[in-house]
């Protein structure tokens, strides 16, 4: 019936096929962006608009406690926000795939089912790199001048580290919400959660209790740590968590992963019930 030889080689190891399957899922994810490049623009629209709005419109009215340029405070915050909103993208793709039956098709095939999730994660990290590059170029064009070198790379790494942790929240939510429309509503949750942090405004300038919440917001640590690593440590606070931003920027994603990776795996397993 078929002219093509359809026998599948059994000589390769399981690890080989796990990686090959994972790569094929990544290829699928990247092809989506290639076919719909406007999606990247949508995902970056809000952060870029925020940079322009806060940088130019509110910029002169914004103050940084302890002095310093508001741009040096704002830009790393914008990079963090871009990473933070990333979990919505993950959730949106996952909810589409699970409700439209694509995940079921994968699960009915002799491929490694963990590659479905792992491939999603790798795709998201590659896209996050592209998003960070675009955001940083925008910032440079607006006069942001970070230190180069190791600190810069370390900051980039910490931002991706945060994005990595948020993949699992995205996968978990994607398998939890009933339909793609509901996933759209996640933005309404994400927006205040990213605002109550040190992204736009230093926590010291907020009412005491709110400032405390903002300082302990995991994304605040990544923002403060990357400000330090970019060589522009402006607007830092005196509380313990703000004094240990570098440490906490490493620890928070571990905590988030420890909570949400098992939840995501459990949800994925639940598909076979």
């Amino acid at each position: 019936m078929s002219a093509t030889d359809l026998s599948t080689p059994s000589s390769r190891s399981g690890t080989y096929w796990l990686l090959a399957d994972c790569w094929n899922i990544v290829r699928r994810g990247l092809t989506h962006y290639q076919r719909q490049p406007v999606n990247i623009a949508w995902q970056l629209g809000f952060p870029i608009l925020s940079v322009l709005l806060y940088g130019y419109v509110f910029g002169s009215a914004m103050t940084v406690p302890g002095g310093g340029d508001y741009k040096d405070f704002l830009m790393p915050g914008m990079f963090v926000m871009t990473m933070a909103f990333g979990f919505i993208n993950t959730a949106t793709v996952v909810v589409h795939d699970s409700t439209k039956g694509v995940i079921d098709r994968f699960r009915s095939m002799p491929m490694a089912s963990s590659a479905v999730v792992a491939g999603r994660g790798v795709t998201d990290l590659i896209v996050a790199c592209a998003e960070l590059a675009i955001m940083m170029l925008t910032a440079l064009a607006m006069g942001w001048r970070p230190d180069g070198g190791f600190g810069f790379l370390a900051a980039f790494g910490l931002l991706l580290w945060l994005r990595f942790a948020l993949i699992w929240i995205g996968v978990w939510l994607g398998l939890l919400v009933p339909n793609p429309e509901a996933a759209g509503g996640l933005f309404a949750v994400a927006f205040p959660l990213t605002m109550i942090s040190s992204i736009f405004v230093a926590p010291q300038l907020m009412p005491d209790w709110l400032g405390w919440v903002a300082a302990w917001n995991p994304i605040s640590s990544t923002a403060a740590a990357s400000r330090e690593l970019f060589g522009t440590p402006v607007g830092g606070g005196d509380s313990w968590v703000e004094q240990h931003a570098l440490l906490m920027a490493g620890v928070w994603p571990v905590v988030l992963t420890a909570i949400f990776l098992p939840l995501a795996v459990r949800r994925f397993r639940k598909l076979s019930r």
Partner: protein
Amino acid sequence: MDGYAVRAEALEKRYGEKRALDSFDLEVREGTVHGLLGPNGAGKTTAVRILSTLIRLDGGSATVAGLDVVRQAREVRARIGLTGQYAAVDEVLTGRQNLEMFGRLFHLGGRRARLRAAELLEQFDLTDAADKGVGKYSGGMRRRLDLAASMILAPAVLFLDEPTTGLDPRSRGEVWQSVRALVAGGTTVLLTTQYLEEADRLASRITVIDQGRAIADDTPDGLKNLVGGDRIEVVVAERSDIPQVVKVVARVTDGEPEADETELRVHAPVTDRVTALTEVARTLQDEGVRVEDIGLRRPSLDDVFLRLTGHRTEKEAAA
């Protein structure tokens, strides 16, 4: 494989209090199309999802292509195809990109995945649309791409879960044609459907499922004999005309007419359909009976159900 492509014994599946499958048995002979016929919520999809290793069974046992669906799930997956409501293709990618991706995920390697994709696009008459995004496909084209994706490894057993639900008659015909071609190539097909007509057209044997149990297993002719084949149906305006209509219908057709006094309906089984229809219509007109409606009715799933279970399908009952 002892001549059976699918064998399920006493399958159980519970969702909380609800028994989706309740001691469900099924035997599908190799190289045949087997219909699994039942209304919404009867357990058709649950059965297919268990047999295609997507969900775990709570009791009983099942083999597909001679392999146990629980202990040898991975081997089963290399020998089955799944198409229908729940196994879809990627909407953003093109038809070709979809088939190539699935080919690589079936571990064919890049070169053979490309060759196989081109072959299947040709076979399912999708070559012209190969490089268009699936989002722009018509319903019938998508189902054919679905079928093509399920056929990448030329599986021994193909599960078709309501392959034509929601399709217009023309697309439905296209899908039926593709299914027939596959069976001619040696694939065993388990087809779930809500339409007796579809099962009749494609399947050589039909299992009727209701509330998670197999309540009949027969050839399409056997099932149709059970419900009595096509019927002629006359609806009149006046109740007083019913005896006269019964007399006319009895004269023209060979069966015993049944009268429904509340719905003002007379119906009877017919064999020579068109002659009976014209004859009854003409005679009634000659005799001056006011007829509201007259027509031929094929037996429906509902008729099968009524006969087998004494109750109508739930959808009909709600309507």
